[in-house]
């Protein structure tokens, strides 16, 4: 209304009105320019100040920290050096440092930082999910088991990133008691990468293996979840999972689960599992077929060579490659050597697979 009244009052033409509108936009955008420029300058100033403070604090804490790691008796002396206003800086400093530490040294860091973690504990329920994520990382690294309530609650956080980070820090062999909770939360991460999730589950350690086997055998669980579990068992090289894997392989028709089961069998399977594997060596799916031939190569012997040699002539180069590597695994280097000397289409492939073994 105001704008219409203004146009009428000033008796503006259409061109003038257009110019007025455009000028308004230009002024607004010009304002943005000024804001951006000022923002860049302010940021540079703040960053420079922060960098100076960080350098000063690091300098102040570095030697006492090394002393505390060497002799835990000197922990209180370092704690007294930390002023109240610098407590969060100190926690971040220790968090950064802890990435290079393992075992007892990391335990010293946990003791060292323990009096300063209450604020981080409160941040675990901060309204901003990024702050909560950071809190999960800090508490997961330096605050377990004291702050287990906060980190376990993170598994149920509405933000997938928060629960993901909480799960990663809970899934550690040094805290096997949290393994079950991590496993229960896995359904929240159904969009994540298989290997990433499997690696997380595998890192819980052997205490979780019986539960993994039970869940792999459970047909009521989603196929993708069982596929992740199969991959985790493969990463753990869990020797007792071969039987379960072979049974599930006979029952399932799911592609991803079949591939992961075949990889698992190729790692921990035995000869009695070969029948289940052979049945998949003629399937239409290229990747299932390739993994089946690969597993056959690892578990089989000369009797499987004809199937594997035929596999080298497969229309899919992936199947052919896995078959050739399977021949090598099955002890057929002599066969590969002979094939490499022929004029057959896959002679070069035989040469390549033999060559892969040679460290140039």
């Amino acid at each position, binding site marked *: 209304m105001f704008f219409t009244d203004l146009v009428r009052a000033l008796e503006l033409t259409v*061109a003038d009105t*257009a*110019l007025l509108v*455009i*000028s308004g*936009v*230009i002024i607004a*955008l*010009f304002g*943005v*320019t000024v804001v*951006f*420029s000022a*923002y*860049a*300058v302010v*940021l*540079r100033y703040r*960053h420079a100040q922060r960098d100076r403070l960080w350098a000063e604090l690091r300098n102040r804490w570095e030697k006492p920290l090394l002393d505390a790691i060497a002799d835990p008796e000197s922990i209180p002396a370092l704690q007294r050096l930390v002023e109240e206003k610098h407590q969060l800086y100190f926690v971040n400093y220790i968090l950064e440092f802890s*990435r290079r530490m393992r075992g007892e040294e990391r335990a010293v860091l946990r003791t060292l930082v323990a009096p300063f973690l209450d604020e981080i504990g409160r941040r675990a329920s901060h309204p901003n999910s*990024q*702050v909560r*994520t*950071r809190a*999960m*990382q800090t508490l997961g690294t330096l605050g377990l088991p004291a702050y287990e309530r906060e980190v376990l609650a993170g598994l149920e956080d509405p933000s997938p*990133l928060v629960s*993901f*980070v909480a799960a*990663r820090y809970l899934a550690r062999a040094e805290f096997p008691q949290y393994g079950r909770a991590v496993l229960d939360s896995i359904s929240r991460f159904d*969009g*994540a*990468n*298989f*290997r*990433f*999730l*499997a*690696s*997380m589950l*595998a*890192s819980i350690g052997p205490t979780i293996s019986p539960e993994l086997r039970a869940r792999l055998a459970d047909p009521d669980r989603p196929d993708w979840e069982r596929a992740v579990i199969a991959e985790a068992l493969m*990463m753990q090289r869990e020797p007792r999972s071969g039987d379960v894997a072979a049974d599930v392989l006979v029952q399932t028709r799911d592609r991803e689960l079949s591939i992961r089961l075949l990889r698992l069998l190729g790692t921990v399977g035995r000869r009695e599992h070969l029948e289940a594997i052979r049945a998949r060596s003629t399937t239409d799916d290229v990747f299932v077929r390739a993994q089946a031939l690969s597993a056959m190569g690892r578990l089989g012997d000369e009797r499987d060579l004809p199937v594997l040699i035929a596999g080298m002539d497969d229309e899919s*180069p*992936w199947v*052919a*490659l896995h078959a050739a590597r399977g021949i090598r695994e099955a002890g057929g280097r002599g066969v590969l050597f002979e094939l490499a000397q022929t004029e057959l289409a*896959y002679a*070069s*492939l035989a*040469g*390549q697979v033999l*060559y892969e073994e040679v*460290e*140039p």
Partner: protein
Amino acid sequence: MSEAVWSVVEFFNYLVLGYFVVLHAIYLGTSLFAFGALKRYALRLKSLDLGDLITSASAPPITLLAPAYNEEATVVESVRSLLTLEYPEYEILVVNDGSKDETLARLRQAFNLQEAHRVPTADLPSAEIRGVYRSRRHPHLWVIDKENGGKADALNAGLNHCQTPTFCAMDADSLVEPEALIRIVRPFMEDASTIAAGGVLRIANGCVVSQGRVVDVRMPKNFIAQLQVLEYLRAFLCGRMGWDALDSTLVISGAFGIFKRSVVVEAGGYSTDTVGEDMELVVRLHRYCRERDIPYRIHFVPDPVAWTECPESIRVLGRQRERWQRGLYQSLMRHRVMLFNKKYGRAGLIAYPYFFFLEMLGPLIELLGYLSFTVTVLAGRADWPFVVAFLSVAVILGGALSLSAVALEELSFRRYPRISDLVRLFVLALAENFGYRQLNAWWRLQGTVAAIRGKEGWGKMTRKGFATAQTPEAT
């Protein structure tokens, strides 16, 4: 001229003014999206332990595909940088695309190559392979020597020999930072539907390089290169970050991007009949996945960095920009079915129309605008409010966008630590609008015209080589 003609010219002037305003409003809009996204990203980055990711078993094996054509000046240093990457499992496949210079000889000598077998795993069309070599010193370094066929053809040859689930397309003349791979692969680890991710390119001119690594980041001394530093900041931190925030990434730089191999092979690999094979592939991947209802995500990741040498002469820069514009035109025209087509989601409804109307047709409108503005002023037909408005949009708003890029750089990565660099970037943000920007529009217009005429080929690029630090090996 009759009054009717002047009316048309006047109308056109306002049209151009409106175009400038819309263009810059969109640029600044994407900058604001980028601002939010970068802030979130910086916080997110703090919650991830890169060392933990590097050592975890979950990082997918990657093949680096580095096509090289007449890169004798930089190829050894670039490959050295690839050999120092911090990543659990990767192979390097340098594809010598029929170089006429000493590229292959330098590689053979520097890395002690010997002939080897490597059977293709796909059959994408590519020129004849002349030989396959493997380094004795670095078993994960391979060189494929082939007949010349262009960059896309070389990438296809590399893809045919790729044996990992993901591959990284790059230029053999770029320097990838050690942590760049683990940073760029992160979306693949977090989201199983990720099929592609692009990283950031920064200008290496002026920087000090040692053992294949940029060890001291400096602004280039050459003015043309300085302007490109600003352009790259704007393109990556404002543009691509903003488009990523809108989930509409249409471009992943051919110099540094990572892809899911199976999807790219199924989609037909790189197109050999365009000079913009990087953009064409990404646009095609959008189409391919949308038309088959395949869930997919294409990301831009702002912190993995590859350093590249940019042209320092107007002539070479002009050729490069003309080629980029031809690539843009070819990619967009080939997939014009996406224009305002809701079947292609935000890529078809937002990103494609932006690139089509503002990036592809923009230079024509901009240059005609300058022309009609000049004619109007010279004929004494322009009133001063219009002149002020036109100059404001043409100069101040261009500067606004560049300044926003500088602010975003300060917010996020601060790669240029010297105060003098910041001041220089501020000055460049305003200076580029006087001449350089108009020149750029001219090159791009030439590119569009050349594409319409069906011009092919890349044009000659000359490389100076990186400024190497005085290390024992270098001396």
